[in-house]
Structures are given as C-alpha cells and as structure tokens.
C-alpha cells in the first residue's frame, strides 16, 4: 500500500519551483521562469495521472470497494499526546480525482499564461505565486489531518491574495485582494473554532479517526459531543456548522460570497485557476471529506443544503444583470458551487442514497474543465479587446474562431445540453434532488434555466450582437500565440468528453461503485427549459434590438437590486465602515490615549503635585527648620511622657 509515496512529489515539485523562482527568479530566471514552472507542473500532472491510474485501475479497490489509504503520516506539531498536526497524504477516490483536476487545470493555466502574461515585468513572480498556489491546493487535497487542511487552507488563501494583488499598483486590485483575504479569514475563524470543537470532543485531529469515532453512535466521543449543547444545538451541529462556515467562505457561498466578484481584478488565468476551478471548490471538497460526519447530523446538512440552494439561485439572478464578463462568470461559478453544495446536503451516506454525493463530485469535476475553459476564453477575449465590459465587445466570432468554438462548447456544457459534460453531472444532481427534496428540485430547475440564459447572454454579447469592430488594430495580434490556443482546444475536448466517464463507478460516498443511468424522460424537462432559455437569450442579444432593455425595465426594482448585487456589499461596508470603525476601533484608540494612558499621565501629574507640595516645607529658612525641630521635640515629649508611659 505504501507504494504511493511518489505522490509526495506532486505537491513538492511546485513548492520547489516556488522557492527557486521566489529567490532567484527576479534577477536570474525571468526569461525561463514560465518554462520552468510549466515543466515542473507537467511532471506533477503526469504523476497525478499515474497515481489515478494506479489507484482506480490497479490496486485501489479491495473487495469491490475503494479504500482510503494513508500513504504518509509525519507528526509535525504535537500539542498533546494524540492531539497533533500530522502532515499526511490521504489517498481515496475524491483526493485522487482532485489531484487530476488541479494539476491538469493548473497546467493549462501555466501554458496559457506563457502567452497571456508575456512581457510582464514580474513574470517570474507570477509563476512563483502560481506554483505556490498549486502546491498549497495539492497539499489541501492530500491532507489527512483536519488541522493540516486548515494550514493549507490558509496558504491557499494567501496565494490567492498575492495573485489578486498581482497588479499591485492598481488600487482596485489591492482593495479586492484585501477583501478576499479578510472575508475568507473571517470564515476561517469559524473553521478554526469548528476544528477546536471537533478535536476536543473527538480527542484527535486525524480526519480518519474523527470520522470513525463520530460515525459510530455508541462511541464515547459521539455520545459526549451530541450530549453537550450550546444555545439549543448540540456541539456536533456547532462544530460541523462552523467547519462549513470555513468552507462557505472559500467557496463563496451566500452571504460570504462578496469577495469573489471583486477577486476578478486579478489576472484572468488566475481567475480561471483559483476562482473558478480549484480553490473555490475547496469548501465543497471539505464537506465531502467530512461527509460521513455530516450525515450524522441532520441540521448541519440542512444548513449545507439551504445555503447551497440559496447561493445557486441568488448568484444566477445577479449574473443575469452584470455587464463585466468576468463578473458574470464569477457569479456563475458561485451558482454552480451552490449546486455542488446542495447536492451534498441532500445526499445520504452509502449506496444508492449517496447519489447526491457522487453527483456533487461529478459536477465539481466537469465544472472545473468547462469553467476554466470559459475563463481562459474570456481571457483571450480580454487580451484582444483590452476591456472587461460587454459593451466593448460584439461580433468577435470572425476574429477569434477558435476561441468562439471553445467558448460555445463551454456554454453548452454549463447549460446542460447533451452530450456536453455539464449535462451528465447536472442530470445526476437534478435526479438526486428530485428524489430527496422537491423544493430544492424546483430551485435547481429554475436556476438551470437561468444559467442557460445568462451564459448565452454572455455568449451572444461577446461573439454576435454587433458587427465585427471596424478598426483593425486588433487584427495585428490575432487570437494570440499557440500557447493560448492550445489550452482552449484541450479544455474544449475535455468539456465534451469528460461527461462520458462512468463516474459512479469510481467515486461514491462509500467507495462501492453504483449504477446510474440517464433517464431520458426525466431529462426532457431540464433540457427543454435550457433550450428555451437559450432561445430567449438569442432573441434578446443576438442582435441589438433593445428587447432586453424593455424586459429589464419591466422587472424594475428587482432588476436594479440584482444589478447592484442585492446591496450585500453595501451592508458589509456599512457594518465595517459605519459600525466597527467608528464604534469599536475609534473609541478604543481614543480610550487608550485618553483613559488608560490618561490614567498613567494622571498618576505622574499627581506625583508632581505632591512633590511640589512637600517642596514647600523645604523653605531654606533656618528658623523654620528650627521651629519644626522644636515642634517635633514637643510632640515627642508629650507622646513619651503622657501617652507611651
């Protein structure tokens, strides 16, 4: 079993690249930084595929069930006996699947960036940060200890921060990076407390042991955590909810999503990698990792379900109104992650009932490919027109044929049109929802239609809408070099192909393969809805005919509210700028200067006053001194003679 040790190299190679590029890159390696990064990642990718092949087809399965293998465990920081942060490598279906996803998407982004970021002053730094991110993400995936997850969780957050603020002299980018970091940090506080709760009652931080202890209803740990309660909820609910809060922060679930749209200030390939395919699904991955424990607690799972469904719907509505193409994609990411979340939430553990779990992972898998494709396509478009706004685009299909086709494939995939990848995973999610919870099913169906609408709104606005731009200066650099086109083509092929993978054979909630099949009758409704939505989008946006404005006007307040992102940002701003700063920060700073320090100053002043007072006695007049002297003698005499006889 331990012949998986080579997996260690998968995260270590990007780490080595980061260290080398971070120290020497700026001065010595700026010309070959991109190639170096890409080469090391290529090696990692190949290793991941080797690992996947070995795990899924050679020795992962024992008695028809995929096993959890801990390939490495090293005690890194021991808090107390049995309570330690171990650096470990866990190998199970989802971690191997994520390995493949992260390395391949990251590789595509590395290649794409060779063209996209060419000529940037801090080219080497960019690749260093990309490698750091890849390392942290891979570390997160392979974590076998919940505190290890937290560590890499933070590292992922900081690499996201560094990459968003890559254009550091752009104030908007700096503000966005701060926002992203602080919001996720706030969520991580919940995660940390959740870890403390689970660790305290579970008596360990090892994920495997935690799951083992909390899933057997007779274990002392399970009994103690369910019997302890706070504010009416058991500690298990609290712990899981707080852990989910961390996941919700990273995965941009409502109401912690506000950082994601702003994070689009970073370079577009970065958005494709971090804010579409990998880091933002970390929350889903975390819930999946702890899934057996989640299934022990109905209320925590319900929170996951409803937060997921609300985010899916909420983001889809906003996405229909945005005009910045990257923001549309950001909201669509949030919406799709909402899908994955509620799919987990409605799932049960084991067998056919675990369909939601499998569907969620499947959607995560397919989404990674078509969403990164969408972002890279958007990157190509932005590279071409130097703008993020829809109004600056239009009619680009002739100028960028490859991008156009790739983008169209991705749009069809996300809209769930067969036979593209998104269709299969979305069908599974809808089936699971249909069986478990009809309300969720309704929301999911409506969101699916909305998704098709806004994606094709985007598509038509970029590639149709107007005639090709008249001025020809775009022609000169065309669609970009082959390094930018190649990833688009590969990802497009994936967006078509990965749906045909018999996913349920490999990844299920308990490791045992289940049979799924596409029910044609069931599929008619969602597909028909999507097609209708696409046709609607076509009629609005294929030509500029003003219909869309009329509809927007008809929706009135709702449209404005959605366009302003339902004022969530304003609420946060209000809380921070109008409440925390003036009512907590400033009073404390004031109190420190005036009350606490004032007290010390007052002590000093009192001392001064007393000394001035006493100084008066030292008049320098000999006769006064003589007076005191005699007075003292008189007092003493009286004392000695009459009182202390």
């Amino acid at each position, binding site marked *: 079993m331990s012949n998986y040790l080579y997996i260690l190299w998968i995260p270590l190679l990007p780490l080595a690249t980061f260290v080398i590029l971070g120290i020497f890159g700026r001065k010595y390696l700026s010309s070959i930084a991109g190639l170096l990064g890409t080469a090391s990642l290529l090696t990692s990718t190949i290793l991941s595929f080797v690992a996947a092949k070995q795990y899924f087809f050679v020795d992962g399965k024992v008695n028809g069930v995929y096993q959890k293998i801990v390939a490495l465990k090293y005690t890194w920081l021991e*808090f*107390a006996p049995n309570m330690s942060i171990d650096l470990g490598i866990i190998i199970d279906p989802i971690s191997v699947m994520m390995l493949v996803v992260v390395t391949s998407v990251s590789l595509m982004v590395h290649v794409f960036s060779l063209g996209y970021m060419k000529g940037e002053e801090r080219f080497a730094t960019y690749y260093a940060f990309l490698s750091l991110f890849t390392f942290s993400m891979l570390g997160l995936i392979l974590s076998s200890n919940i505190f290890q997850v937290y560590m890499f969780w933070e590292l992922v957050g900081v690499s996201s921060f560094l990459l968003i*603020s890559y254009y550091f002299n752009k104030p908007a980018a700096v503000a966005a990076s701060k926002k992203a970091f602080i919001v996720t940090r706030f969520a991580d506080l919940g995660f940390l407390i959740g870890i403390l709760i689970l660790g305290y009652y579970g008596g360990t931080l090892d994920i495997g042991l935690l799951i083992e202890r909390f899933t057997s209803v007779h274990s002392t740990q399970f009994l103690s955590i369910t019997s302890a309660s706070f504010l009416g909820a058991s500690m298990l609910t609290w712990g899981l909810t707080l852990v989910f809060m961390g996941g919700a922060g990273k995965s941009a679930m409502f109401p912690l999503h506000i950082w994601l749209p702003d994070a689009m200030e970073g370079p577009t390939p970065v958005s494709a990698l971090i804010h579409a395919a990998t880091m933002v699904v970390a929350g889903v991955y975390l819930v999946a990792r702890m899934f057996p424990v989640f299934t022990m607690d109905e209320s925590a799972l319900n929170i996951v379900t409803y937060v997921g469904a609300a985010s899916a719907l909420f983001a889809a509505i906003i996405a229909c109104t945005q005009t910045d193409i990257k923001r549309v994609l950001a909201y669509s990411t949030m919406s799709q992650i909402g899908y994955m979340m509620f799919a987990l939430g409605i799932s049960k553990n084991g067998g056919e009932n675990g369909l939601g779990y499998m569907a969620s992972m499947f959607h995560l898998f397919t989404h990674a490919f078509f969403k990164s494709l969408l972002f890279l396509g958007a990157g190509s478009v932005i590279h071409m027109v130097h703008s993020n706004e829809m109004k600056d685009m239009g009619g680009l299909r002739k100028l960028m044929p490859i991008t156009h086709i790739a983008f169209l494939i991705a749009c069809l995939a996300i809209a769930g049109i067969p036979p593209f990848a998104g269709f299969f995973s979305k069908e599974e999610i809808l089936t699971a929802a249909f069986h478990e919870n009809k309300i969720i099913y309704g929301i999911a169906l409506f969101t699916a239609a909305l998704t098709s609408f806004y994606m094709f709104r985007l598509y038509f606005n970029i590639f149709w809408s107007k005639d090709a731009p008249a001025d020809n200066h775009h022609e000169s650099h065309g669609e970009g070099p082959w390094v930018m086109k190649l990833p688009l083509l590969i990802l497009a092929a994936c967006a078509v192909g990965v749906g045909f993978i018999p996913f349920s054979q490999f990844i299920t909630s308990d490791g045992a393969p289940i049979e799924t099949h596409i029910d044609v009758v069931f599929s008619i409704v969602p597909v028909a809805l999507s097609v209708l939505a696409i046709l609607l989008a076509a009629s609005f946006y294929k030509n500029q005919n003003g219909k869309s404005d009329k509809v927007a006007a008809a929706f009135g307040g709702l449209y404005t509210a959605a366009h302003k992102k339902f004022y969530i940002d304003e609420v946060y701003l209000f809380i921070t700028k109008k409440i925390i700063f003036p009512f907590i*920060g400033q009073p404390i700073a004031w109190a420190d200067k005036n009350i606490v320090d004032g007290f010390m100053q007052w002590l000093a002043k009192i001392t001064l006053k007393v000394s001035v007072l006493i100084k008066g006695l030292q008049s320098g007049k000999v006769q006064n001194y003589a007076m005191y002297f005699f007075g003292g003698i008189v007092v003493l005499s009286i004392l000695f003679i009459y009182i202390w006889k």
Partner: protein
Amino acid sequence: MNLTLLILLPLLTAVLILLAKGLQQIRIIGLTGSLAQLGLAGWLLKSFLAERAAGNSAAHLFESNQTWFKALNIQYHIGIDGIALAMILLTSVIVVAGILVSWTMDKLSKEYFFLLVLLSMGAYGFFISLDLFTLFFFLEVAVIPKFLLIGIWGSGDKTKSAMKLALMLMAGSALVMVGLFGVYYNTHTFDIVQITQQGIPVAVQKFFFPFAFLGFGVFAALFPFHTWVPDGHASAPTAASMFLAGISMKLGGYGCLRIAALMPEAAHSYAWIIILLATIAIIYGAFATMMQTDLKYINAYSSISHCGFVILGIGMLNKTSINGAVIQMVSHGLMTALFFAAIGMIYSRTHTRMVAQLGGLLKAMPFISTVFVIAGLCSLGLPGFSGFVAEMTVFMGSWKNPDGAYRFATILSGASIVVTAVYILRATGRAIMGPISTEHELLTDATWNEKLAAVLLITGILIIGLAPFLINHLITPSTDAIMLQMGKILVSK
C-alpha cells in the same frame, strides 16, 4: 560549559567598544561580539541537546552556584532549561540583527553600541538566573540602557517617551521587588530551585503573587500597563525598537512564567484575572492597531495584542498553552524585530512613517517590501511562519480548559486574528502596494547589512514555522517539568 561566558562575552565586547576608535572599528567589534554570542548560543544549544540525549534529565543544566552576598543568602546561581535556552537563542539572533541594522549609526556611535551590548548582557543574565535576586539585578541592568537609547537617539517626543518608559518599567520592577522580597521573607532564600522544592505558604502566595506577576506584566505590556509600549517604540531608534520588543518585552513574559511556576496555587486562583486581562489586551490591542496611521505605532500596538497571547497561554496553566506561550515569545520576538527593521529601513529612506504618505514601495524597494510583507504575514499567523505555530498552540491549549468563560475568552482571542488580518493588509495595501509617489520612485533598495539582518530573522521565523517539532522538542521537557511540579503541589493540597 560555563554559562557565565554569556555575561562575560557581552561585557568584554562592551569594554572593547569603549576602547575602540571610529565608527568602523566600533561596528566591527560590535558585530564580531554579537556573532560570537550567536555562536556561543548555538554551541550551548548543541551541548544542551547532547546532554539531554545522553539522558541527563535534570530540570536545569549547566548549573553553577556561588555565594554572592552571604548575609542575605543571595547566590549567584545560574542554569538553563529549554525555555531559557530558547530565549537565549532569540536574544542572540536579535542582537546580531540589531547591530547590523544600526551599521550606519554615526551619532555617538560608541555609546550607542555600548548600550546595545549592555542591554543584551542584562537579558542573558536574566534568562540564566536561578536566583531571584540575581534575576532582579539583571532585569534592572536591562532597563537603564533603554532609557538612554530612546532619550538620546530617539525621534519625535523622545524625552517624554523615554521618561514614560523608564518610569513605568521602574514601577514594574518595584512591584517585582516587593513580590520577590515578600517571597524571600517567608522562605529565607532567593534560590528558585530551593523555593520550588520547599513551596511557599498559600497565604503568602496569594498576597505577593499579584505584585510580582503584575510587575513583570508591565514589562510584557499587560493591559492596562501597556501605555509605555506605543510611545516607547515609536520614539526609539530602529535597533532599540527591535531590542525593546524582541528582547525586553520577553523579559516580562519569561518572568510571568517563572512567577506562575513558583506560586502555582496563587496562579490558579488568580487565573481568571490573568485571562481576563490577557483577553482584553489581545482584542483591545488589535482594535487599537486598526486605527493607527503610523507604521511604528501599528507594530507597537500589535505587539500588545500579540504579547497578550503569551499571558493568555500562561494564564491557562496547562502544558500545551504554556508551550504556546513560549513559542509565541520567540516567534513574536523574531517577527516584531523583523517588522521594526523593515519599518526602520523604510523610514531611513522615505523619512516618513505615516501610512498615508507612503505607497507602492514594492516598485522602488522590492526587497524591503518583501520583508515587510513577510513580517506582516507572520504577524497574521500564516502557516509556514512561526506566528501560526505559536497562536495555534495557545488556542489548542486554551481550548482544553472546559470552563465556558475560558472558551469564550479563547474565541474572542481567536477573533483577533481576523482584526490582525485587517490592519496588516490595510498597512500593506497602502504602503507597499498601490501607486507610488514620484518622490519615492528613485529610492534604493536594502544594503548588504540590512539584507543580512532580515535574512537572519526570516530564517529564524521559518525554522519555527516549518519545523515546529524542533522547538517543541527543546521546550516540551521543561514545560513538562513545570507542569509536573505544579501538579504535585496542586494535588497534594
């Protein structure tokens, strides 16, 4: 291995500095001396580990004991355990870095370097003392140089800051003295080892513990005795800030730890006050930092918040939390010294420390900016840097305490890491990132000595951050011993 070398070496360096002529000679002597200290500390570590590996499990190693003043039973009793050794290593690293960043100090350079070295001598003496009187003596030795360093070489309202700092620290040591003498009059010895063995009557502990603990608390910037920190740090020259935050505040934390170990019953019964004050310091310091506009004030206030973790760890009184407190001391020492070094480098170039007047420094001085960002990330507890290890250990330790109020205190302290992120990122976003002003565009990056100092400190931070098992290995036996001793007393009660 004679520990007295740790005192003699700085003393020799100080004397040589007085004899030297010219800045060049002085700084070379200073650097050589401090490097020798670093080497000595490293050698000490090596022989300490060798002794431990050879099975010597005595609480204190390299002990030696000489009568200093017989009539009052004052001994020159020295010896180190893992905790003291960690502090000594920290001190030696910061001394080297401090000397390196003051490489171009041309105003009264002889006196300046002399005082720096003297301060380090006081710190070493303090950490190796096993006798309360010697401990107190070296504490005082370390106070006076600070007053002069700030008063003469400082900036801004330096006289007032120096006065404030010296007076508050003196008041702190007066409290310490009352506490220590109170112990002495009831045990008739100053010897820590002896006192630990024979124990102190509970009533005496309860009366004198607050004096000694709060006295050291003043040094460790415990709320509400922290007000010397912001002014003192802001006015001090760079190296003095580094020494002040990196070494001198640690004297307080270390003293608090020793006092708590000496009087366990009192520590237990006053634990809730300690934890209350520490929690206030953590949260209050963090929020106060958020409103600061001067880089040095930002770091000074954040030091209050971070040192709160040290006191919190001590107050929670369990092995993990005390381990965390010790790691936090070392980590905060390195990190804050690095921060002050970076701020000093920025200030010496731009001549301003106001965040609003800076911007985009990453463009003009990539190295210094990177150092600043690293210090900031360490401060906000990023994994891979020492701050994470320290804070998480304190949290884990605090959380072990099942009392609801303590849990609440832990959660509140945990919330401070969010506030920390806010102020660090605000400062970084304004000063390091963003557009650069034209007058700062042509400034130069760090010189070799500044680079060396930063690299040295970062190495320390990374060693703890990446391989925390090393420092754990060093200090855990000592905390075990302390907990065992405390446990024995508490059980027998």
